[in-house]
């Protein structure tokens, strides 16, 4: 069972960061739903809810999602439903139930780099960026590859463009964690294939994305899916074996590419 000794609700991001780094076992708490699954001994819990980070904004070049935005707000946002074939909204709509999605936040999920995350896979395929208080702005892909550090995620940015995308997932039951998930996007002739819940954190299938971008042919869909499944690593847990995930990855990648091709 986790414990919290002190509770802080800073009014500025600077104050939040200074509190966070003032002691080794201080921690930012996001929606607080996943806290109970762990056994962290938190000295001071830093709650970001007073920082005004709960928003989805339609900027000139980006859609900006504040760190405290809940999954339910992402699911029901007309802006997100109407962009990129609704993949961002679709990626969160099967996570447990509405009552849960009214609590969990994008900031906590992305910053924690949860392996089971549906949202990270979709954002990765869309070439999203993150804005961190200390490290600044960087691609989500770079952020995922960096070691875990002490920082605060402020927002997620998604470039507004004509990118078409598809999100696919496999679950034992509709509200369970995914066994595997895949998101594929295309902007002009550039393709991105992201695979998550492997069960490691989501990653781009770089080689498959490159081959697909350089020489797309409808007859070679199986081939692209095979490359993606071969280049990534898969693991086993109670939801599925590595072999099963790898086999299902091929199916979902192929399905997602086909769905993107049908996007208008």
């Amino acid at each position, binding site marked *: 069972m986790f414990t919290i000794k002190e509770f802080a609700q800073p009014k500025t991001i600077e104050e939040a960061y200074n509190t966070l780094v003032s002691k080794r076992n201080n921690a930012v708490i996001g929606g607080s739903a996943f806290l109970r699954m762990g056994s962290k001994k938190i000295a001071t819990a830093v709650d970001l809810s007073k920082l005004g980070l709960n928003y989805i904004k339609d900027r000139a070049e980006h859609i900006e999602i504040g760190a405290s935005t809940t999954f339910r707000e992402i699911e029901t946002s007309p802006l997100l439903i109407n962009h990129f074939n609704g993949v961002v909204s679709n990626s969160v709509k099967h996570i447990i139930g509405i*009552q849960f999605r009214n*609590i969990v936040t994008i900031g906590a999920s992305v910053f924690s780099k949860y392996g089971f995350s549906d949202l990270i896979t979709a954002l990765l395929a869309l070439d999203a960026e993150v804005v961190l208080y200390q490290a600044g702005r960087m691609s989500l892909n770079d952020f995922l590859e960096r070691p875990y550090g002490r920082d605060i995620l402020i927002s997620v940015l998604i470039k507004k463009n004509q990118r078409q995308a598809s999100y696919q997932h496999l679950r034992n039951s509709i*509200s369970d964690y995914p066994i595997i998930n895949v998101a594929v996007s295309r902007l002009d002739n550039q393709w991105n294939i992201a695979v998550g819940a492997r069960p490691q954190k989501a990653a781009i299938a770089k080689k498959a994305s490159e081959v697909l971008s350089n020489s797309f042919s409808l007859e070679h869909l199986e081939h692209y899916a095979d490359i993606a499944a071969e280049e990534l690593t898969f693991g086993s847990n109670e939801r599925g074996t590595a072999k099963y995930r790898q086999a299902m990855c091929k199916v979902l990648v192929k399905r997602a590419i086909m769905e993107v091709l049908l996007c208008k």
Partner: protein
Amino acid sequence: MQIEIILNGKKVAMNVKNDEYLADTLRAHGVSSVRKGCDTTCCGLCTIWIEEKPVLSCAALSIRANGKSITTMEGLYNEAEEFAQVLVAEGSEQCGFCSPGFIMTVLAMKRELNNPTEEDIVHYLTGNLCRCTGYMGQLRAIKKYLGVMQHEPCR
């Protein structure tokens, strides 16, 4: 720490621990409609409303509810009873353990969704588990209660 919430329309002060969840706080305060089923955020039994939105009280820290409006089934007695009558009439009230969380979600859906389809209803209620009814009776009851077009058959 002492927090002050608006519980079912009344201002209430409570002492809570920093790592305490609302399900425990409310039950300790005598709110018996709030039940813990799984205690791992999966079953929906502990559903309450915070600022009119349905949330899992087993996943919401009490300390963060400071200054907010909390609604439980005790605060929606007449509406809950009205829907419960429909549940009974459809034979979908069995052991009843999941009913408070289920009813809180249905009443939230009634406010949030305008003229929902069967698919909308099923999606909204995915987070409420029931081990007795098989859900078909509940779905019939909800459609009847919300006046969903009856030509849409239950699948």
